[in-house]
């Protein structure tokens, strides 16, 4: 029986694979500048297919600097587990349920319309209490990006569910790890931002004017759409021949040919989903030219915006 709580769970969890995980993609030099000025930076390296990172970090405002050392895009979703739920519980009851559903879709045994009912049956009730807490989005190979969030103590997971050329989620290949956030506080203050993005059911707003160079975006989640998936935000510069429709197709997890190499554009910044009411930050190193701000799932519902960075 599907309860409202479970539906919420489905909504939240199903959002995750749908998010466009565009990362705060910077040149290594720019990323180092951010790291040097931050009080608490957790350096994470992404390989094909593993994270190199500490297993335990202090709580409070935390900047994750993710460097992609692999040959494929990676991102880092962070989620806090409900009390009493372990990493193994999450892997076996949540991640594997998504993987089974993905296999069904990939192998043509189920259609997109069947995903939600199947997940409703498969996911445990506690999954409604999993809190997705941001993390750097997509990073192209050889790039680095940051996301800054305020994390409470608890048990977390970090995950990348990009897909290999064989159609396996990176999380099934090893990019799904436990993370403990301790009671020790970082003492870090949130970063100063020159730009502000608000994500709401009505759409996305951008306050401020992005400039060439490193930009810090403050992101505020006003709400998430009722009965469906939530927002995240990513900054993309499309390839010359690519369209917005190409991007929205590629970042739709339920498209069998999506979420895998090659991407239709260059990802230069982003942050994964957080709860309604939350505020967090990411950085993007921008060159002059046109960009899209897009939310993975709700982008197709109109939660996206365009901006242009003028030359100096």
């Amino acid at each position, binding site marked *: 029986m599907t309860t409202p709580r479970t539906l919420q769970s489905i909504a939240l969890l199903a959002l995750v694979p749908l998010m466009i995980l565009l990362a705060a993609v910077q040149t290594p030099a720019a990323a180092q500048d951010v790291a040097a000025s931050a009080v608490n930076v957790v350096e994470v390296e992404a390989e094909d297919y593993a994270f190199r990172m500490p297993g335990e970090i202090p709580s409070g405002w935390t900047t994750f600097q993710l460097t992609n050392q692999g040959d494929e895009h990676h991102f880092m979703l962070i989620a806090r587990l409900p009390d009493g739920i372990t990493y*193994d519980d999450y892997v076996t009851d949540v991640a594997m349920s998504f993987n089974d559903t993905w296999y069904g879709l990939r192998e043509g045994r189920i259609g997109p319309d069947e995903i939600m009912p199947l997940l409703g049956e498969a996911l445990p009730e506690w999954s409604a209490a999993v809190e997705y807490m941001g993390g750097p989005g997509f990073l192209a190979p050889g790039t680095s990006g940051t996301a800054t969030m305020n994390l409470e103590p608890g048990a977390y997971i970090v995950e990348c569910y990009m897909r290999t050329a064989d159609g396996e989620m990176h999380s099934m290949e090893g990019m799904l790890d436990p993370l403990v956030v301790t009671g020790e506080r970082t003492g870090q203050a949130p970063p100063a931002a020159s730009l502000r993005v608000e994500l709401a059911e009505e759409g996305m707003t951008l306050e401020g004017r992005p400039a060439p160079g490193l930009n810090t975006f403050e992101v505020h989640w006003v709400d998430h759409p009722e009965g469906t998936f939530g927002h995240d935000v990513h900054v993309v510069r499309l390839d010359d021949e690519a369209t917005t429709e190409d991007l929205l197709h590629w970042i739709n997890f339920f498209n069998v040919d999506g979420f895998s190499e090659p991407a239709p554009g260059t990802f230069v910044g982003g942050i994964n989903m957080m709860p309604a009411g939350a505020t967090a930050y990411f950085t993007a190193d921008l060159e002059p030219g046109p960009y899209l701000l897009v939310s993975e799932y709700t982008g197709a519902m109109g939660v996206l915006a365009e901006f242009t960075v003028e030359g100096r």
Partner: protein
Amino acid sequence: MRSHSPEPERAGDCLGSAGLIALCVLSCALASDLAAQERAPGAFLAPSTLENLSSEPNTVEVELTAAPERLSLFPGAQTEFWAYNGSVPGPTLEVSEGDRVIVHFRNELAYPTTVHWHGIHLPFTADGSPFHPVAPGESFVYEFTIHPGTAGTYWYHPHPHHDTGRQVAKGLHGAIIVRDPGDALPESLSERLLVLSDNRFDRDGQIDFAEPGSRQARIDEENGREGEVLFLNGRVMPELAIASGEIQRWRVINASGARTYRLALSGHSFVHVGSDGGLFEHPREVGEILLAAGERVELLVRGEGDPGSTAVLRSLPYDRYLPQTRPADWTDSLALATLRYSDEAPVDAVAIPERLRSVPPLDPDSATVERRMTLTKNRINGRMMQMDRIDEVAELGATEIWEIENLVGMDHSFHLHGFPFQVVERDGEPVNEPVWKDVVNVPKRSTLRFVVRFDRYPGKWMFHCHILDHEDAGMMGVLEVRDP
């Protein structure tokens, strides 16, 4: 004394009672092997020994053939194996330190193969690595010398590129025992060679490999292929005899393609006396032993049971897996063999020396190079194996530190060809006693460091994960040792 394990126990899901059926009747084995294998069903059976054809002193010259063979190891079925000299496991190569070894090998399989002399320090051309495949119908002569200090338990198996796992699973593996005339352990200890393997069979009793693209293939790709039927020297649940008070010396080889054995003997502890490269300096009392794919161990088993009693050798649950693909039955305790005490009165125990031998430590401070090997899915340092690429270059004679970092949530067993090493640190904690290793288990999300010296033999040497599916998928690299 250890208590019996509380975990559920099974001896092979599809077998029922071991010993119901004669297990090891060969259809057309060599005569010497046939004699050994036609013993009573269920009894412990040591592999036969390769016959030395040489009359020269300090020379061991043998013939070894890999060929298809129908054997009845899986109860009730004639199974098409690939066997060395007609037996699974193959006959044991028994040599002594200082011996010159000549192996006349013939490949009567329909596929290229090699014979890798796992753990032996030998010339590159004799290593049986993927660089020297032996084509179907062709022969190759392996020649090498057993250097002083090598005494220990090793094994041989195929190593063709992309096909090692299948060929080992088909039955191609055998033991090597290198003896030291000055061995400190009393000669009166009865010695047992235990070659552990596992396999999977279809309904017709044939060796079963997962259908490419299937869920099982995906699980095998991740975990390495494990079989639900466990063999000890090619037999299911054999019975080892012991007398009360007796001390036996066990040489145990993990010849499985992926499975890790966490060995325990009910009601007994072990005296751990050696590892891959032979005896320790001092014996160690342990309750259990972890043996990853490719590793070996030497144990003393003390007959502490009463006359007429029995004990069970088991593999206890060990979580080496990613939770994504962890087998549902991984918490089962797997029975491997029965240890049965004779009814005779206890015999007097033999004294075990406190010092077994001197193991010269390699000095980490003399290392001129430090390398880091990062282990991820089917990759080392982010790269998959390419035969035409040299991944690392070392100088002949150099001492180096290798840091092996396992980034993922499952164990990997790391093997370096040709050059034994000594682990000096695990997760930042020093390892003080020098122990010769050639395979080392790197637990999930952990790091270890070892010191190695590239003496004597230049050439191209493999380093790889000894979970054979991982090796075959590309989790391997090439170290070239160059004479400066």
